[in-house]
């Protein structure tokens, strides 16, 4: 592994000519080094902005989504996406952004509604308009204003189309962000903490401590997941809501899922603890805690970041597969996984592809962004490596 060489202390002296301020490198704090290297990774920077945007969407979902997630309209099942036009209908409403209404026709043979744009029906859109749907803005005050919505609260407004109940997919995708980008991640963080702590302890102290931790790891590894899930499904209190159950499941899964990470960390620590600079630090009288924190853990960062960025998309996707056991998220909760699950039938694929496209796009964009961000962070976390 090249990273082993990369951590040899002499390396900073050889910082390459590509660096803007090579002379100062040795004196800069490693944090600013990391940041500077990260900025060179263009894709990672873009991804960082995307992730920030995604979390902003999650935080301000109530303001951004034109309709509440559960708001349905029996008049517009499977309505296709509308396009926004700039026009002046000439009836006094003035120039502005408009969407067309629909005309629909029910086919008696296929039982399908066929929608076409109604050129005579225009609904004006506006910014920060009252929507008629009250919500508490960040828990502070009641309002019903939405960033971008039609002026008439009842007008059909389906930027990304409607689902079978005439619910706005645009709004639902926005609300889905909240669950998809939060709950699952808690489990990832938990298993990360357990895995690293136990792995580092085992690797660093070796001997009996290592033996005990290894045996515990083996016990956890031998637990079969599927029967365990079934047992959990039966054991969890039934008066918990589906969100609580899902949270409990992710936590429990992370309590079991830390084993492989812990093994990897232990292996790395075992190699690292005999590295010259670690030995040097020990001989200099550094405390164990300091050796672990300052010298060993930073070398592990790249590895940890890589596993986290891979775990996050896996968690987002696992959300759907868990649903088949009745353990995952279920409607009426809105998450991308739930939206995808609702779109997994022939009718949606054939007559309403947007049901599949919108949540898939959300999942793909966020996971890709997280992966690139992870790449960037991993490379940047080893500031001395790429310079060789």
């Amino acid at each position, binding site marked *: 592994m090249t990273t082993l060489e990369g951590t040899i202390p002499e390396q900073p002296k050889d910082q390459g000519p590509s660096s803007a301020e090579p002379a100062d490198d040795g004196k800069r704090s490693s944090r600013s080094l990391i940041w500077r290297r990260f900025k060179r990774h263009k894709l990672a920077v873009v991804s960082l902005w995307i992730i920030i945007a995604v979390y902003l969407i999650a935080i301000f979902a109530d303001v951004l989504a034109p309709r509440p997630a559960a708001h349905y309209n029996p008049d517009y099942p499977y309505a296709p996406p509308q396009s926004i036009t700039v026009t002046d209908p000439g009836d006094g409403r003035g120039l502005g952004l408009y969407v067309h209404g629909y005309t629909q026709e029910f086919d008696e043979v296929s*039982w399908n509604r066929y929608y076409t744009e109604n050129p005579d029906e225009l609904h004006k859109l506006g910014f920060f308009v009252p929507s008629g749907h009250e919500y508490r803005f960040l828990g502070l005050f009641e309002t019903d204003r939405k960033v971008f919505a039609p002026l008439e609260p009842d007008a059909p407004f389906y930027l990304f189309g409607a689902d079978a109940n005439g619910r706005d997919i645009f709004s639902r995708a926005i609300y889905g962000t909240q669950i998809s980008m939060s709950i699952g991640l808690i489990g990832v963080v938990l298993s990360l903490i357990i895995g690293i702590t136990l792995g580092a302890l085992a690797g660093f102290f070796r001997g009996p401590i290592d033996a005990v931790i290894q045996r515990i790891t083996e016990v956890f590894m031998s637990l079969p997941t599927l029967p365990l899930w079934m047992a959990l499904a039966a054991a969890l209190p*039934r008066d918990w809501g589906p969100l609580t159950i899902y949270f409990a499941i992710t936590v429990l899964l992370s309590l079991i899922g830390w084993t492989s990470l812990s093994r990897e960390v232990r292996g790395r620590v075992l190699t690292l603890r005999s590295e010259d600079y670690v030995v040097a630090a020990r001989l200099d009288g550094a405390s164990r805690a300091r050796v672990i924190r300052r010298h060993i853990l930073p070398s592990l960062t790249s590895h940890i970041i890589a596993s986290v960025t891979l775990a996050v998309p896996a968690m987002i996707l696992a959300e759907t597969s868990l649903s088949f056991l009745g353990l995952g998220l279920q409607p009426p909760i809105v998450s991308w996984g739930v939206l995808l699950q609702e779109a997994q039938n022939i009718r949606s694929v054939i007559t309403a592809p947007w049901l599949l496209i919108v949540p898939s796009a959300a999942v793909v964009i966020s996971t890709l962004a997280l992966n690139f961000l992870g790449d960037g962070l991993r490379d940047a976390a080893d500031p001395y490596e790429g310079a060789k």
Partner: protein
Amino acid sequence: MRYAASAATALTVAALALTSCGATAPAASEPTEDNSSTGHIDTGMANGSPALADQLTAPTAESPQLAERVEAGELPELQDRMPAEAVTLIGKDGVGQYGGELQMAMNGNDDDSLIRRYAAYEPMVRWDGDWSSELTPGVARQWEVSEDATTYTFHLQEGIRWSDGEPFTSDDIVFGYQDVLMNEALTPGPTEYLMDPEGNWPEVTAIDEHTVELKFQAPHGLFLMQLARAEEDGKFHRFPRHYLEQFHADYNSDAEQMAEEEGYEDWADMFTAKGWVTLGTGFDSRWMNPELPQLNPWIIENPAYEGTRVTAVRNPYYWKVDEDGNQLPYIDRLVFDVFDSAEVIAFRAAAGNISYQDRHFDHDFRPLLAESMDEYDFSLIDVTSTDMNTLLFNFNHIHPDEQMREVFTDLNFKAGLSHALNRDEIIELVYFGQGEPAQAAPREGSPYYHEELATQYLDFDLDLAAEYLDEVLPDKDDDGRRLGPDGTPFTFAVDVATDRSVEHARVLELAQGHWAEVGITMEIQSMDRDLRNERRDAGEFDVYVRDGSAGLQDAILRPHWYMPYGDSGAYAWSWGSYYLDGEDAGEAPPQDSPAWRQWEIYDEILVTADQERQAELMHELLDVSAEAFWTIGVSTSPNRAGVVANDLRNAPHELFEASAYQNPGPSYPALWWWENPDEAVADDEEDAQEYVDEYEGEDLPE
């Protein structure tokens, strides 16, 4: 009074049925206008199903394939294989031509009911194509029932031969009854349809070669209908004595040794695999053993329960003809491809690879089918399901929690919830605007339709709903949620299976909103189907939802949605088990429960022979159902779609669907024929399955 049914009377009744619904029948006509070139014949069936002609016809011609074999000396002449005067079928498209294959799709290897429905509906007495109460002759050409419904005499059609050429006689029936059905080694469970309501076996005697008499100890009023429903096992006339004796220990002392040589566990294991239903797996030998002689139009060629394709070929000894005396069936071979999901079957149908199929098509597949039918030359058929309701809310009347039970059994509670449901919205959003608001009741048009039961508490009226609910749960908290008798917010959970119940989940989501309006909190608990059934069987649930079945002729045979009967009606499964299987199986309802009165009436139906009287009693029974209001219904089930190739003749484009009916069996697939038989050839087995891989690989990721 004696009941004699002959082909002639059956036709008159059917013709009456036609005149009464003649105005509506053609309105729903199928899009295949080119059918008219063949000239439609009135078969007496309102839906254009083939029917029995009122006279017999001498056989005159056979399939060219069989003629070749006669030529080669492998088969006797046609006249030696068939009765001198054979049972005659007529179809709307007239006399057809031989050849072609009929291709269908099974949903999994255990979907053998599909084979049975196409290849093997040959009961003693048959349902007709309109599923009227009048039964038509099958293997029995005529029958008499004693006035007290204890003695049944069947006159068998003369000249019928098994598919190996041996004559079929009353001796086969006596053998099947005494040596197979009553033999506990071969048939461990009770044969319920053959037992009278008190659980006694009848006395079966062969009066002569073609006459069989069954004497029950107690009246068995529904016996003829039980014979017509024919679903489980082909009934008691399926056992060819001459072939099966060799495997039976009572007839062949070497049977045990033979079983050992052939690798069976014992003689019973061998016997059931050769000619009955296997003990362990429940596989039917009719679809496994090509050597087993049968009375059906097609005999299995490529066995079921293994592999991906099952085929059945023409029975050279089939005993029915068309009106010109051509031996049936017209179609050479039935081909059943085995797939593992209904979606794949829908795609197969949409690509024109299914000749005729009336099952496995969800409403959601309809646009797919409708949009590809012109390109691939097929049409949609209209399948009226016996399902009478899209979703029933079964509140647990035997809830372990005293308080819940009190609320759930209160009529006001259920009436209130029913009035609070916006059924029109549910129909519009979930069921494509198809169907009418309805409670759990036999469908309109069935002989047991009960208007009050079907339409009570249906109006969407929140004020009325609140009034009813105030009688049960008058107190509310600050958020407007109703409080239970113990002062905490009253909530209940609905168990819904995660698989295959997408529509139910969507109905529940809407109902949740409707009921929140009147202060009732419902939680939706999605779970695995097995877990859900386990919870139901343990009685540990609040509400169990299911679609309501048995809404046509079968309402009287399977009344579990109208009164506690067996464990299927989840609202009071334990009482139902008590009624059917006695004290050990379930719990007795309280003395004042309407169930007792219903059971009394049903007991009387079981011993009544007169069909009119049966219907009257059923009406009385449903009066009590209306009073008890066991379950809350949503809407009538919309008709389902099926597919039919445009070149297929004589096949009905409208039909009924029920397991008790065995569609399309009663519509005589033996009489169906192809306009272009040379083109009607199934695609290659590997191609068919490759199609699945493609579909599963690309369109819907796991």
